């Protein structure tokens, strides 16, 4: 298993390098000049030239790339043109927020989506199935910002149960941190729960029809054992795929949700950086997100091997 993961990490290195090349050069194609953005109203050519020299923007592109990637390999992702903070520090501030939001949203999605999918597959064609499908469809169709605002109106303003916005670092006060994060996580999680429910349902439908589920019933097992032990465990592979992909997406940040609940996460950082032509920040974030995605994929592959013995000796 360890050698498998090691091999997958080695294979991932060229992928990450390729992504870094893409990110770097695509961004240079964007219209706009970071120096102009930085200099603001003052268009004094000398200052512009000074800034260009300072941030080595006059070097040939490939030199700029190698300087950047060389530093990145040493853990230095550069300095934000805008705030003059090291990019790594910026990411380090936002990452825990985003991870907490992602984990909480995912837990909510799994807790709602997987059981709903199982029940609706098991009771296919009954009113339970219809109800679950209608809820799932609404979950997918209702925009996050609308649901977010409605929740704030109801839960915070009317009922006063949860804070409407803000962020409390988890380590400072875990309970308060979870309380502030609960609504945004719920808004994100319900949308994902719908996706997860649909995938769980279709995977379970396939497995419940299979011969070995009939075998399990013929053995005289209880329905719970049949559904959980024989059916669900075999349906887990597609579910794991969806969960890891969703988690990767969540790590990239949820701009709208963060905006509504004023959570200082990744989403806001990246949007600001793009508008300000803050190259170093955009590059750093995209690189981090890409690595997170690849890590989730490796995790998914490793989980497949745990879940499915047939994938072990390939």
């Amino acid at each position, binding site marked *: 298993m360890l050698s498998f993961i090691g091999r997958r990490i080695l294979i991932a290195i060229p992928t990450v390098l390729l992504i870094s090349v893409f990110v770097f050069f695509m961004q240079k194609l964007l219209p706009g000049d970071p120096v102009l953005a930085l200099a603001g109203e003052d268009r004094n050519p000398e200052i512009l030239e000074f800034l260009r020299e300072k941030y080595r923007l006059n070097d040939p592109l490939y030199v700029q790339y190698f300087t950047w990637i060389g530093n990145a390999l040493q853990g230095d992702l550069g300095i934000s043109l805008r705030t003059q903070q090291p990019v790594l520090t910026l990411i380090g501030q936002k990452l825990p927020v985003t991870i907490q939001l992602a984990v909480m949203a995912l837990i909510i999605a799994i807790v709602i989506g997987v059981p709903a999918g199982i029940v609706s597959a098991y009771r296919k064609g009954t009113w339970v199935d219809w109800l679950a499908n209608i809820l799932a469809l609404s979950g997918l169709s209702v925009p996050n910002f609308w649901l977010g605002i409605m929740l704030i109106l109801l839960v915070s303003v009317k009922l006063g149960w949860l804070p409407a916005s803000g962020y409390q670092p988890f380590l400072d006060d875990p309970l308060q941190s979870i309380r502030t994060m609960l609504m945004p996580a719920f808004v994100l999680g319900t949308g994902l729960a719908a996706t997860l429910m649909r995938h769980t349902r279709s995977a379970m439908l396939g497995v419940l029809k299979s011969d070995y589920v009939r075998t399990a019933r013929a053995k*005289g097992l209880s329905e719970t054992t049949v559904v959980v032990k*024989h059916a669900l465990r075999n349906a887990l592979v597609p579910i794991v795929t969806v969960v890891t992909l969703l988690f990767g997406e969540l790590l990239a940040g949820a701009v709208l949700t963060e905006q509504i609940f004023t959570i200082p996460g990744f989403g806001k950082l990246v949007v600001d950086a793009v508008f300000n032509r803050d190259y170093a920040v955009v590059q750093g974030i995209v690189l981090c997100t890409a690595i997170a995605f690849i890590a989730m994929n490796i995790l998914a592959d490793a989980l497949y091997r745990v879940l499915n013995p047939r994938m072990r000796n390939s």
Partner: protein
Amino acid sequence: MTRNDIILEARGLKRRFVTHKPLFGKPTEVRAVDGVDLQVRRGETLAIVGESGCGKSTLARLLVRLIEPSGGTVHYEGREIGALGDAAMRGLRRDLQFIFQDPFASLNPRMTVGALIEEPLRAHGIGDAAARRDQAAQMLTRVGLSPRHADRYPHEFSGGQRQRIGIARALACGPKVVIGDEPVSALDVSIQAQVVNLLEDLKQEFELTLIVIAHDLSVIRHMADRVAVMYLGQLVEIARTEDLFRAPRHPYTEALLAAIPLPQYGARKVKVSIEGDPPDPIAPPPGCRFHTRCPYAIAACQTDRPALRDLEPGHSVACLRAEELDLTGTADAERSHNPATERRFRLYREARHEELQSTPT
């Protein structure tokens, strides 16, 4: 035959499946099993034969309540199993086991072979963990596999080996009745003989009652004590195997027997053949269901539904003209028996015998 001899009995068993359900109007239904009365005697091997789609697998599943009947009842040891609650039914599954047709799909790919065989034991609370492991190892040995196979996964085995695992699983909890739904049809011919012999040996050893669903008549002839012939969801003939093969009383049985390939050119004197596919079971023909394909059909066959009746003790048939027809069986019984097949079965039996004697138990 006393009541006590009957271990499993179906009375007026029916099962309909909805094939198409329009938004408005009546749903279309298939009557897969349409009023079957069947008595299975303790310790016998009963074969149920028929074309694809005649309802024999459905009948098998109804007999152990893997699906619920639309009508009629099944009685096991005099108890109506349809009336049992979930828990009681699960308990009864210890006595009624099933061997499935497809050895590739019927084993959970996520579980080791040992876990698969032990599971019914655990479900029925038989023995402790160590005893169950022993029992699984013993069953594996008994079906010709090795105890060390217990830690492997189903995908690591061949079709024949998997069917042996399926058999070991079915027999592990000590059932009284075992139903095999085409237990060998998915296997190579060379493997079929092994598995058939294994089933026979195990039947002797564990004093089982065996119900075998099949469409391969040569396998049936080899195994079964009695044969029930099914056509479009109904039984058309039940008889002892020799009687049925020697002197069938239903034209459909005759046609089935005529379809057994004979190894010699010109070996068959009379050519009986039925043409076309069976009628649509959604709209079965009136009268005798076989009349559309029957070479002996008369006008009455189109209107009168023949009931299954005893023609002589132990030989029932559902045909209006049963008395007057002189049907051809495989009169020289040996003729239908391929000598090569016979030799294969014999050689294998001898080999097994030696193997059993050389391995200390």
